[in-house]
């Protein structure tokens, strides 16, 4: 991680405090690849083989998906190196989106219990 702090050329008078080096880019790529491979192992081996139940698997999938999203947004989209204000205004909004999705899943579950079977 020591190669982390390379200074880049000023752009329109803005200074970039840190940037992605080639090593870091490939490191993030292998993390993303490893997470995807784990998801495949769960989908093709753990759940069909009875080593993990579908509902536990679903929570693991969602956790791994959010982890992948973090790596893409933080490193590839460079958000980790931006100012706190920008980070907060974006992530808080995303948190509300996820909250809304959860709410609507609960609503769907209610419909499941109360609608006629079609």
């Amino acid at each position, binding site marked *: 991680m020591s190669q982390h702090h390379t200074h*880049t*050329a000023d*752009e*329109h008078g*803005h*200074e*970039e405090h840190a*940037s*992605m*080096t*080639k090593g870091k*880019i*490939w490191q993030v*790529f292998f993390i*993303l*690849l490893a997470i*995807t491979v784990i*998801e*495949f192992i*769960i*989908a*093709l081996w753990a759940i*069909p083989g009875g080593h993990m139940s579908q509902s536990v698997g*679903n929570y693991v*999938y*969602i956790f*791994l*998906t959010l982890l*992948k*999203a973090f790596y*893409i*947004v933080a*490193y*590839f*989209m*460079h958000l980790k190196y*931006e*100012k706190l*204000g*920008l980070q907060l205004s*974006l992530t808080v*909004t*995303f948190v509300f*989106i996820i909250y*809304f*999705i959860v709410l*609507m*899943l609960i*609503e*769907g*579950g209610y*419909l*499941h219990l109360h*609608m006629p*079977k*079609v």
Partner: protein
Amino acid sequence: MDSLSKLDQVKTTPWAGGREPWSVEYGKIMMWFFLLSDAFTFSSLLVYYGAQRFSKFTWPDPDLVFQSIPGFADHGYPLVFVGIMTFILIMSSVTMVLAVEAGHRRAKKEVIGWMIATIIGGFMFLGCQAIEWTHLHHEGFWWGANPASKVAGEGQSAINAALQPFFDGEVSFVSAQQFANLFFTITGFHGFHVFSGVVINIIILCMVINGTFERRGSYLMVEKVGLYWHFVDLVWVFVFTFFYLV
């Protein structure tokens, strides 16, 4: 007097005025705002998908629906093809960051090389998606159609027989139809984003080749199109989980 002279002191905190608190270039902020609004659109589709799926007592099993590797095997290989597609998209995201990194060093030739690699990755993904759509269409899935549509008038047992290969357990005509509608709408909307991303990438590539950014003194535009491209990758991560895995 003391309290008044304090007012004249120059404040240096980020939010004290006279400076940009986020110190991000205007176009980049606007790209972030656009991506946020785009995230609302995608999440509205995913919200509808999730609510529908939770409200149904059964749903097509992705391991059974997505079984083919076009040109290699018709069935028996669950999720392998979509795995290849995911790999292509993550890979093209990496080449995009590498283009941005080369842009920081103002290495024009490297930017061109990585941009071309990204564009090829985008086209490969679109090609895979076209093949996948064709395959599902041949099986009978489409907007407003599912494998049991043609036998819908022949009674419940004909419907069950047509749909049984795609379900693990109980069968539902409505669920199969909702699955088809939502699959083509959501992956179609995502594919449209990939397509626009490829077009924008090609435009930026032409500008790089023409030396526009060399004259401008910065490759900031490559970063902005990169943000868009990563967002497309980000959306795919969610589509992949919620359509193919869960």
